[in-house]
């Protein structure tokens, strides 16, 4: 048994160094392959760079040429040029005006880049899909719209967002309910980017975004995204929905609801903002104070003054700044606090001093 133990011992040791040796040899092979790949890639990149320098002026010339565009007037495009042209066009589209956009679309059609874009979508690569979906945002036909809808319903998140962004660009609000139903329960998403995209749909989407965040299975991220979008759209029609979320259990959601409310100007929000000054979450209190100052709600002087002794500096600061924004009455309170500085009011006196100094009123 001892002999067999020693033998297995030695066998194990042999296996260790042999496997390591194989690993070493594989490493050398991997390194060689990497180098060859690098050299090849660098050559390719160099050629691509040269070609891009040739295509840029060509594209600009075609775009700004005074002649009408047709198959005969356009120079032929090689297959290998298509991905480069797509990149250049996407860059152009970010800065272009309407007339030029129409011409770009013509160029795309005449060079048959639209077919190429649909082919890109079929690839499994996120990069190609996102690029293709971005381009489809500038098309104006039914086929591209349906394609965008199809990809907006998929669960590959950034591909989904790219499709949704393009739909927003096309103002295709009618597809939003179906897409948002898929998005609502998703917690793994880019909340802020989604909010940005939803905002781009504008006022016509308010009803659908409200439904989206009111869904029972709507995740916290979805609620926050929707609230941000509604806040930026700042439609009065969204007020009642946003107000509902000022009582939400999640601090994050409540805070966002108050931030969104602060962007609106309507009588119904004032008591809600006042209520926010007593919230358990310091971020909510700070946002409520900030909004009250922005809207110059003079009947909130008392609760604002109380907040000057809040344990959180940011709350104290927003309350003091809000008092400052309320004008003479607020400034007077701040000055009095400094003059009658006592230990019980030290927080209040300090913040009053800081805010007045910052505003050049010391």
């Amino acid at each position, binding site marked *: 048994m001892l002999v067999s133990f020693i033998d297995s011992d030695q066998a194990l*040791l042999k296996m260790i160094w042999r496997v*390591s*040796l194989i690993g*070493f040899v594989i490493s050398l092979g991997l390194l060689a392959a*990497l*180098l060859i790949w690098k050299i090849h890639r*660098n050559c390719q990149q160099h050629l691509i760079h040269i070609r891009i320098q040739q295509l840029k002026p060509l594209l600009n010339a075609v775009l700004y040429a005074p002649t009408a565009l047709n198959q005969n007037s356009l120079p032929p495009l090689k297959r290998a040029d298509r991905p480069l042209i797509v990149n250049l066009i996407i860059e152009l589209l970010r800065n272009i005006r309407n007339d030029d956009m129409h011409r770009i679309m013509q160029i795309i059609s005449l060079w048959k880049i639209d077919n190429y874009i649909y082919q890109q979508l079929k690839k499994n690569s996120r990069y190609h899909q996102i690029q293709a979906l971005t381009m489809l945002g500038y098309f104006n036909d039914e086929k591209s719209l349906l394609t965008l809808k199809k990809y907006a319903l998929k669960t590959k998140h950034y591909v989904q967002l*790219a499709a949704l962004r393009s739909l927003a660009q096309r103002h295709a609000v009618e597809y939003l309910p179906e897409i948002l139903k898929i998005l609502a329960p998703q917690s793994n998403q880019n909340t802020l980017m989604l909010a940005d995209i939803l905002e781009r749909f504008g006022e016509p989407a308010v009803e659908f975004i409200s439904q989206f965040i009111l869904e029972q299975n709507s995740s916290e991220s979805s609620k926050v995204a929707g609230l941000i979008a509604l806040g930026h759209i700042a439609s009065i029609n969204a007020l009642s929905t946003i107000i509902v979320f000022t009582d939400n259990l999640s601090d994050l959601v409540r805070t966002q609801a108050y931030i969104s409310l602060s962007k609106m100007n309507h009588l119904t929000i004032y008591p809600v903002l006042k209520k926010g000054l007593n919230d358990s979450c310091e971020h909510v209190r700070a946002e409520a104070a900030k909004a009250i100052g922005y809207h110059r709600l003079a009947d909130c002087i008392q609760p604002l003054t109380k907040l000057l002794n809040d344990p959180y500096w940011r709350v104290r*600061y927003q309350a003091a700044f809000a008092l400052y924004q309320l004008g003479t009455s607020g400034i007077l309170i701040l000055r009095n606090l400094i003059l009658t500085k006592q230990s019980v009011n030290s927080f209040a006196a300090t913040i009053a001093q800081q805010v007045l100094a910052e505003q*050049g009123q010391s």
Partner: protein
Amino acid sequence: MLNTTLEFTHQHLIWIQTIAWTVIVSGLIQNLFYLCQLPAAWLELNQYSQYEDSESRWHLLISQVTLPISILVPAYNEELTIVENVHQLLTLNYPLFEAIIINDGSTDETLQKLITEFNLKLSTRAYETSVKHAPIRGIYISDTYPNLMVIDKENVQSKADAINAGINVSRHPLFCVVDADSLLEASSLLNAVRAYMENLYMVAVGGAIRALNDEVPSSTGKKINYRFLPLLQSMEYMRSFFMSRLAWSRWKMLTIISGAFGIFKRDIALKIGGFSHHTVGEDYDFIMKMHDYLVKHQQKYSMSYVPETVCWTEVPEDWSMLKKQRTRWQRGALEVFFKYRHIFFNRRYKIIGLIGLPLHFIMDVLGPIIECVGYLIIPFFYLTGALNLNFLLAYTAVAFVFGVFISVSSLALEEITFQQIKSSKHLLLLGLIAIVENFGYRQLNNFWRILGWIQFLTKKQGWGTMIRKGYKAKARNKHI
């Protein structure tokens, strides 16, 4: 003497072989662990890589939802480079940020140069004092550069103190700490902030640190000079940031975010009292403090590592500087392990306490000790005949050879995903370094870690001096 030695080894053969097996198994476990990190890193990159989504970066740039960031830059006696550094900072590709330079009681003309160059004037900006730091002498703002602010404060020989002053004065929900002589890539912030947008409970995001001075243009600018020691560190950073940190992030066990570049949530930093003063591992300590606080307060949170966020920094160019740095790092790590020993195997801390921190301890603290023991005893006992050739070969394999596969794989991972290395020559050099570093450099680092142990046990303090040569201006070849 020789007979005595031989007799000793013969009498204690079992013990010697047990020790040898311990060393070999320990090395094997370490290597297998690194092997497990490779696929985890690959999966993390595949799932979360932003490299393929340039559209999002553009839209973040023009969007009003992108979170504003305060960039905190502690500066002490940086008169030679501070103006250029600040100019570079102000050109970052990000919609809304404030650059806060903290002049940490510089004895040279750092402050004066800033005031002159950027038309700074004293301001009465209100700021909180939640986090302790030495008194602030003045806060300066600029009408010409509205997103620039300079804090002048007293020096207490603590970078943490300077950062804390910056945290108090900043107002944005996120802050980022960058060394004065580091170079942030233009889109670093855009890449990093996406992690916060994806997860509302994100509290800390780390990025990749790369060596600025491993390839430096010659004085004529026509040739690139490659430097051996920085190349070694370049490879080491690559292994650390493109394999190890990605894997830890995937397994939700990140315990460190490099002090050279990290983005953190300001309100959490305030709640935990900012950075700790009396430690040389203040970055490590900060993350562990976050873990400790958030678990104790039962708050949901997340930490992540985003490999596309790149910060270029000058690495030590001579061995004595490198030794000081590595012993300091080890000292810092030990201070953290000792301070947060209550987290070890504590179920309350879940995966961090049960697996993360203990694994870090084994890999970074115990592992080097066992390896160093191996360097000494295994060759010796082979020569005395107590261990046969298989032992020696197996030991050589786990201590030296296996690491080559890990290093080359990390290099491949980085190159296939990001292609940050511009030239084939640089890639070839790094590839050779990936082999060479396992035969001497890694072992030297382990010895320095032992020195770090000794310094920790003898309670040595301080950072030592790092001499910087100012490579930012020459870093054009990095295409940053």
